[in-house]
């Protein structure tokens, strides 16, 4: 990756992303690109550092040793293993070292205001391990001493307070599983298929079991004044991202969370406390929270009146888009985990579906680019505002296919096709792009990102 002027894109817009991609591609020698793919392997300095030298396994190390296969007795069963507490925190098997978050280097000008993607091609079940949760930052990641963390709640409340983390943890807690997403998830695809990777197209999405205190519990204690219609949340970090939240959401299921998946929030996700608004745009769910203020009108801050608005073809834009419509994607197979080497026969397609409006009710799968659809099986609990798993079983004849998934949530909302979304929103809306993701599976098992639109 060279660092030419062209690659220095902050990429607030799709236009810039695509332009940069073109330029990046043109700057890479053809031979390099092909080798890159053929070799099937490439580790960046960054990824290598993330994995750590001790974690590395050479290609040779993956080659199965016949002496470890039946009828032999595997050698790992014939001598002591390493000390149980060798890794006091615990790390994945060294054979899983390629399961990491990744960046798209040309996307942003720097690595402070940027995004890091979750590898859905390697995630099983519904919960994202904390180290793989996607990261979106506007001013870098900060480390806060929990003893220095303070939350001020003021404005139209009876009793303004400053809470410490210890205070917060003395309130009754709840533990709930919810998906978490950036509204720009999949945004690079509006003008045509862009990225040949499920990690890059759908990796601004994660799902965790959160623990924290419902905001209504705290408001019970401090008292909300009549006429308070909006809450302003503000971070303490360099970007101090703030947003306006209507009181209906605050009193429904908003939480102040301090833990995810059983441990303290990671710094990248807002340690020690972030706002959680289940089903809503990640940018509203302020990390490194320092202040909540209640008032009678909204703030129309930059992030809700210019950024994170949907610009439509007639030149006007939708604002306060908040909630994620029903969405889904096939993660098996996908460009990263394709079916090369697979033979025709019984196959399983698997993926994830989610909706900010409630439970996922149905997921349908197409094998012919959207002409015909069949209902898939939901294989996880149907939790509201959570990632839900689906699987679809069929007999593959070994011929090329165009596969995709389409979710319908409990309100009856169905995810649109590319063409439907194009007609309804044009190409410049950027956010909340939930079109059906199609993968083209060729006869040799390669999988690529494609779209179908009216000719």
């Amino acid at each position: 990756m060279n660092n030419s002027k062209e690659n220095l894109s902050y990429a607030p817009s799709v236009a810039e992303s695509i332009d940069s991609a073109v330029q990046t591609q043109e700057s890479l020698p053809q031979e390099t690109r092909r080798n890159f793919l053929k070799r099937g392997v490439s580790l960046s300095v960054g990824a290598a550092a993330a994995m750590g030298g001790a974690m590395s396994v050479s290609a040779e190390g993956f080659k199965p040793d016949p002496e470890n296969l039946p009828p032999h007795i595997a050698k790992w069963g014939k001598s002591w293993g390493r000390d149980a507490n060798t890794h006091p925190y615990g790390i994945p098997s060294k054979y899983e070292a390629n399961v990491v978050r990744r960046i798209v280097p040309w996307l942003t000008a720097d690595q402070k205001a940027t995004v890091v993607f979750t590898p859905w091609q390697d995630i099983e079940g519904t919960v994202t391990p904390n180290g793989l949760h996607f990261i979106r930052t506007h001013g870098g990641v900060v480390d806060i001493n929990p003893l220095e963390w303070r939350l001020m709640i003021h404005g139209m409340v009876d009793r303004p307070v400053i809470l410490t983390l210890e205070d917060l943890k003395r309130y009754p807690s709840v533990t709930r599983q919810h998906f978490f997403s950036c509204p720009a998830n999949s945004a690079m695809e509006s003008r045509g298929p862009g990225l040949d990777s499920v990690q890059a197209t759908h990796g601004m999405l994660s799902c965790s079991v959160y623990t924290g205190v419902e905001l209504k519990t705290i408001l019970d204690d401090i008292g909300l004044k009549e006429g308070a219609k909006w809450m302003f949340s503000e971070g303490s970090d360099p970007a101090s991202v703030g947003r306006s939240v209507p009181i209906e959401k605050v009193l429904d299921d908003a939480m102040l969370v301090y833990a995810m998946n059983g441990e303290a929030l990671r710094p990248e996700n807002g340690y020690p406390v972030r706002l959680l608004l289940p089903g809503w745009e990640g940018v509203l769910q302020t990390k490194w929270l320092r202040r909540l203020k209640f008032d009678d009108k909204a703030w129309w801050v930059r992030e809700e009146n210019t950024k994170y608005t949907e610009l439509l073809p007639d030149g006007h834009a939708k604002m306060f888009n908040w909630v994620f419509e029903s969405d889904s994607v096939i993660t098996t197979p996908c460009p990263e985990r394709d079916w090369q080497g697979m033979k025709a026969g019984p196959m399983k397609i698997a993926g994830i579906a989610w909706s900010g409006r409630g439970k996922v009710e149905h997921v349908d799968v197409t094998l012919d680019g959207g002409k015909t659809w069949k209902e898939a099986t939901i294989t996880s609990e149907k939790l509201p505002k959570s990632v839900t798993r689906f699987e679809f079983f069929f007999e593959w004849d070994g011929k090329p296919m165009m596969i995709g998934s389409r979710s319908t949530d409990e309100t009856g909302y169905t995810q649109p096709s590319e063409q439907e979304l194009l007609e309804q929103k044009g190409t410049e809306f950027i956010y909340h792009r939930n079109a059906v993701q199609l993968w083209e599976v060729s006869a040799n098992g390669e999988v690529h990102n494609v779209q179908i639109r009216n000719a």
Partner: protein
Amino acid sequence: MSKSVMRKSIGMVAVAALSALALGSSLQAGETPAKASYTPADPDHYPFRGIVTNKKGQKINVDGAVVRPAIEGDLINHSPVTGYKPHLGTKPTQEMIDAWNVDVRPDGKGLPPGKMTVEQGSEVFAKNCAMCHGEFGEGSGKNPVLVGGQGTLKNQAHNGGEEGPEKTLGSYASYIAPYFWYIKVAMPLPTPKSLSDDEVYGILGYLLQLNEIEVNGKEIEDDTVIDAAFIKSVHLPNEKGFEYNDLRHPYSHGNRCMKDCIDPKKVKVMHIGVDATDSIVPSVQVPRYNMEEPKKKSGGNAAQSDYKASCAACHDSGAAGAPVVGEKGDWTARIKAGNDTLYTHAIKGFNGMPPKGGAMSLKDDQVKAIVDYMVHASK
């Protein structure tokens, strides 16, 4: 030529260049689209209040989401404990509240005392903002452009073939007052919360002048004083360009069609025209159990990655007059000045460059290593 005229004429060139990129749109600044089939959002009134019942009998919240009935044992929407009043926390002093209570609403509520002229504001901007946004708000590298873009909002770019909309303060934003809070707490990106209230007023005034916003029918002059009253009287061209999204009635959606949903003869399959995959690091298409040994990180690489993280934004592009790494001409004289001088400038700041480029978390030795790397790469 007065400074103001000069600044404006150069600013105009930048704006003209940006406008030239606009294709297929006749929308002018200040106009709502010809077919205004929408209701402009009103900051004083949000229309989709309360909880309603839909056709399926579900309780629906303002966001269109199902509000689940509180059922014992079902913790979704059911609070295990209610009405608990332990009176936790301490009361903040007025001083504490005032120090943090810096948000500003579109009606100007929250704007603090303070003032600055546009002339002074342009100097503050040159010193603190131009390194990324350009001297006249035209952007640098690909950092956000703050000026121009009027007439581009209807642009629809398909597959990278056409220019898309240019969304700036002048073309897209609707109210200026909330930007006071934004600039005050979040800018400049590397050293936020360092500007005084006076300076933020000055910057806002300069940005309004660059965007040729008229206030009360008058152009903004160099000696115009920007304060809370002035900001409250500003109306931006795209003030009526937004509509609240009625999330209870999603304006985009699909249909649960099960067969003969498309006519294969009437559609086209689009493949990736811009093969961006290879720029993802590491490559996709990685067989799960097949990987190479990562290369060991050398000292040089650490400086290089620090450089990329903290310095490249300006030193790759030449923003704010920064010497471009790899451009020998930019470095000959500097290398002659000697490493000690370069170290001092890098650590303590020099001209448009803030101390350590704003990356205050870097240790002095790390900064020196970055300088060594930059010099080495530019010889």
